[in-house]
């Protein structure tokens, strides 16, 4: 399954993945953080998509707990995914979850620390052994 098939939240703006030139420093630190977490679990990042998470209510901003519920339900319903690990951190990423899909593929979804404008990055990562 391609990462392009994963649900895109209404809380992202734009609704398409950003390039490496958007929030470049923050994105580098974020991806490095997720890569390190994946490595600690015996995986490497094979593919990634990064979005800008503005939140469900602009005044409130990014909320991992709501995004997690949205994605977890959709992943479980569509791909019979099982959440196999989750972490929170004071570093990068602030929160992450790892799912195993019914075909055995493992993906990670993570949220970055707040960006200077109050938004956050959300990344979808396809992991391989």
């Amino acid at each position, binding site marked *: 399954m391609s990462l392009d098939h994963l649900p895109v939240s*209404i*809380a992202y703006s734009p609704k398409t993945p950003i390039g490496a030139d958007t929030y470049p420093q923050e994105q580098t630190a974020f991806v490095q953080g997720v890569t390190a977490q994946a490595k600690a679990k015996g995986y490497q990042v094979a593919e990634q998509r990064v979005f800008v998470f503005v939140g469900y209510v602009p005044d409130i901003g990014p*909320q991992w*707990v709501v995004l997690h519920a*949205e994605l*977890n339900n959709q992943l479980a319903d569509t791909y019979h995914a099982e959440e196999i690990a989750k972490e929170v951190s004071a570093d990068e990423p602030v929160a992450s979850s790892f799912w195993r899909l019914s075909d055995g593929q493992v993906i990670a979804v993570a949220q970055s620390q707040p960006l200077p404008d109050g938004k956050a990055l959300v990344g979808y990562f396809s992991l391989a052994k």
Partner: protein
Amino acid sequence: MGDLTDQDLYGPTGKPDAADIHQRNLGDCYFVAPLGALATQQPERIQDAIAYNAETKSFTVTLYQHGHGGFLGLSDEAKPVKVEISQAELQTDMKVSDNLTHGPGNARGPIWPAVMEAAYAEQQERQGEGMTQGLGRIGGGGYPKNAIYALTGEQANRVSAHDAKSVPVDQMYDRLNGALQQGRPVLLSTNYMKDVPNDGLIKGDGNSGHVYMVEGATKDAAGNVELTLRNPWGHNITPGMGINSPDPITKVDLKTVLENGHVDELAIGPKPPHRTQDKDQTQQQGHDGPPKQAPSQVQTGDPAMDRLLASLNDPQAMDQALSSLAQSPEGQAFHAQGQAQYQAMEAQQAQQAQAQQQQAPQAPTGPVMVR
């Protein structure tokens, strides 16, 4: 960011407010919803629980854990615990959990939810762990009854959906409305719904339910009971989860959410504390109580027990006799045996809770894990 002080604790009202909470990164609705309900119903409890130490620039929070009291220390008695939160720990909570409201621009909202949450996380830390691990522990779901106990030192009255359904709905209205009028915090916990519901509550998150603060209960002329609930998320925009509103308040028909299986249980917290009044009442009862009876003449052969029996009508002497009995070798052995049994029971319950957390999907027996 400069140091945070008691000046940063509350908003313009000078009191904690449920609207100060926006649950963001942790799955701890079971803690922040009771915290918000307490802020609405008994703000003084939270104000009394938090002290700022200007010298150390830290906050001290009084929480409660199960302790031992009563006869030979065998009964369960809430033990107040002072949890000290440093500036660094508070900043970690605000970074990891970030459950505060954010004002205009990037101004920070009142910090009392972060102080309380950091203290709860520290209380749950295990040896050698730090604030981040503690936040991780509380952020994976839990049960409101445990949070209510930690915040108040008192057990919540829990009404399962099964019990609530077994009585007429207006009886439940009387109970819930009465509790709110008495100033008690009231929480509604949900079950995870496989199908997308259309009842005002969210579906839930992968086998876990959610907790709402109950802020009101009304009954119309036809006898329909409507509950006013506050979502600790700070809104109800939930794509694919059954409700889509920027308003954190949602209204639900009690009968509907009981009958469709969405409600797991209702938890009713304790009344506001009236310790001085309670003490006065106790003293008053002492003066007006039944006439004193003659001390027991029974002799057991055990001096400590005989002193206790002889003191039955003299509270001060009884207190001394109990202390003496508790300190006797037999009392100590009995105490140790009781403690060992209690610890074994706690360890067994912890193991069971851990085993339940590791099971996926979770069987919906007993209270449902909420986050």
